[in-house]
C-alpha cells in the first residue's frame, strides 16, 4: 500500500525529529501534560475516594461519579472551557484534571470498600486506631483497585490531551489535528501511530508500577478484582 510507505517515510524523516514541532518535543509535552493532570487529579481524588470508602459516607456520590463522567463529552468540555476562559495551558490542564478525577474516586472508593470486613475487624482487634487501620490494613489490600483507577485515569488523560490539541494544546495530538486540516494523510496516520504507541507504553509502565507497588500476595486478586469490579459495578 502506498499509504504505508508514505507513513513510514514521514515517521523516519529526520526533519520531523527535530525542532519545536518535532516528535521528541511533542512527545515530551504530551507526557508532561498527562503527568501533571493525572498527578493533580490523584492528589485531589485519592483522599476523597478513600475517605468515602473508609467511612461509608457519600457512597452514592462515589458510585455515580464515573457514570456522570462517562456521560459528559470530553471534547465539548474542552471546547467550552476554551471559549469561556480563552486559550491558555492552565484552563486546558484544569479541564484535563477535572476529567481525570472520576475514575480515581470511584476506583479508590471501590477498592477500600471491597476490603474484607474481617480484615478490618482483625486490625481493630489488634488495637489499631482508625487511621492505622486505614494505612496498615485497608490501603494495602485496596491497592489493586486503586492502581486500576489510576491507570484508567492516566490512559484517559493521554486520550483527552490528544483531543485538546484541537484547541491549541501542544503534544502529539497536534499531528492529528493539523494533519487532518492540512489533509496530510501521512502526518495524520503517523501521529496516530505515535499516540497509540505512547498509550500502550504508558499502560505497560503503569502495569509494571502496579506490580511493584502491590504486594505479591494480592497479585491474583488484582487481576480478577479489577475485571469483576468493572463488570459488576452497575449490575
Amino acid at each position: 500500500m502506498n499509504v504505508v510507505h508514505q507513513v513510514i517515510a514521514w515517521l523516519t524523516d529526520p526533519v520531523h525529529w527535530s525542532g519545536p514541532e518535532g516528535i521528541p518535543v511533542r512527545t515530551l509535552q504530551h507526557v508532561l501534560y498527562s503527568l501533571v493532570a493525572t498527578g493533580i487529579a490523584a492528589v485531589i481524588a485519592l483522599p476523597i475516594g478513600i475517605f468515602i470508602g473508609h467511612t461509608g459516607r457519600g457512597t452514592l456520590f462515589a458510585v455515580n461519579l464515573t457514570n456522570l463522567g462517562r456521560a459528559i463529552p470530553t471534547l465539548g468540555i474542552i471546547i467550552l472551557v476554551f471559549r469561556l476562559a480563552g486559550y491558555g495551558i492552565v484552563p486546558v490542564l484544569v479541564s484535563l484534571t477535572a476529567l481525570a478525577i472520576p475514575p480515581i474516586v470511584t476506583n479508590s472508593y471501590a477498592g477500600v470498600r471491597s476490603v474484607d470486613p474481617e480484615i478490618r475487624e482483625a486490625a481493630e482487634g489488634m488495637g489499631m486506631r482508625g487511621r492505622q487501620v486505614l494505612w496498615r490494613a485497608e490501603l494495602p489490600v485496596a491497592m489493586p483497585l486503586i492502581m486500576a483507577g489510576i491507570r484508567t485515569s492516566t490512559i484517559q488523560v493521554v486520550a483527552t490531551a490528544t483531543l485538546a490539541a484541537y484547541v491549541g494544546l501542544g503534544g502529539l495530538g497536534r499531528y492529528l489535528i493539523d494533519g487532518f486540516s492540512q489533509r496530510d494523510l501521512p502526518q495524520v496516520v503517523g501521529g496516530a501511530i505515535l499516540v497509540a504507541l505512547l498509550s500502550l507504553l504508558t499502560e505497560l509502565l503503569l502495569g509494571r508500577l502496579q506490580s511493584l507497588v502491590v504486594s505479591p500476595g494480592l497479585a491474583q486478586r488484582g487481576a480478577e478484582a479489577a475485571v469483576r469490579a468493572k463488570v459488576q459495578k452497575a449490575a
Partner: protein
Amino acid sequence: MSSGPAPPLAAEVIRWSWIGDHLDDIRGNLVQHVELTGLAVLFGLLLAFPLALAAIRWPRLYGPILGFTGVLFTIPSLALFILLIPFTGLQIQTALIGLTIYTLLILVRNIVEGLRGVDQDVREAAQAMGYTPARQLFQVELPLALPVIMAGVRIATVTTIGLVTVTALIGWGGLGQLFIEGFTLDFTTPILVGIVLSALLAFAADLLLVGLQQRLTPWARSGR
C-alpha cells in the same frame, strides 16, 4: 496575556434565538448521534457474543481476546479512528467500526463474566435434567447472566455516546458537530447545547436500559 478578541466571559453565553433557528440541524445531529450509538452497540453485541462463547468454550482464548481488545481500548479514540482511515476511507463506516471496537471490549468481558457467574449448581442441574448445551445456554444461562450483561450494555452505550462526539473531528460526530460549530464560530451556545443534549441522551439511554433490564428479569424484583 495577549489582548486578542474581547474577553470571552463578556460574550453572551446562551443565545436562545440561535437554538430556535437551528432546531432542524440540532435534531439532525441528535438523530445521527442516536443512530451511530445504536448501531455501534448492536454490532458490538452481535460480534461480542460469538467471541464470548468462544472464550468460554476455549478458556485459553480468553486471555488473548481480552488482551487484544484491551490494547485497542487503550488507544485514544481519535487515534483509532484515524488509523482506520487508510483502510476504510472517510466514510461513516470508519466511525462505526471504531465505535464498535470500543463497545466490543466492554461487552465481551461482561458477557463472559456474566455467564461464568451463573451458579455451578444451577448449571449442573440443568445438564442433568437433559438440556442440550444450546438450549441450556439460551434458556438457563443467558437469562441468569442478564444483569451483568446489561450492566455492560449500559456502560458501552454511555461510553459510545461520549465517543461519538469525538468523531466530529473526522467529519461525523452527531451532537459533536455542535462543538465544532461553536468553536469555529466563536460562539458558546451550540457548545452548551451539545453538552447538555449529550448528557441528557446518556442519562435517558441509561434509564431506558435499566428499565429494560427490570422487565427482562422479573425474578429479581419479587420478594426481598
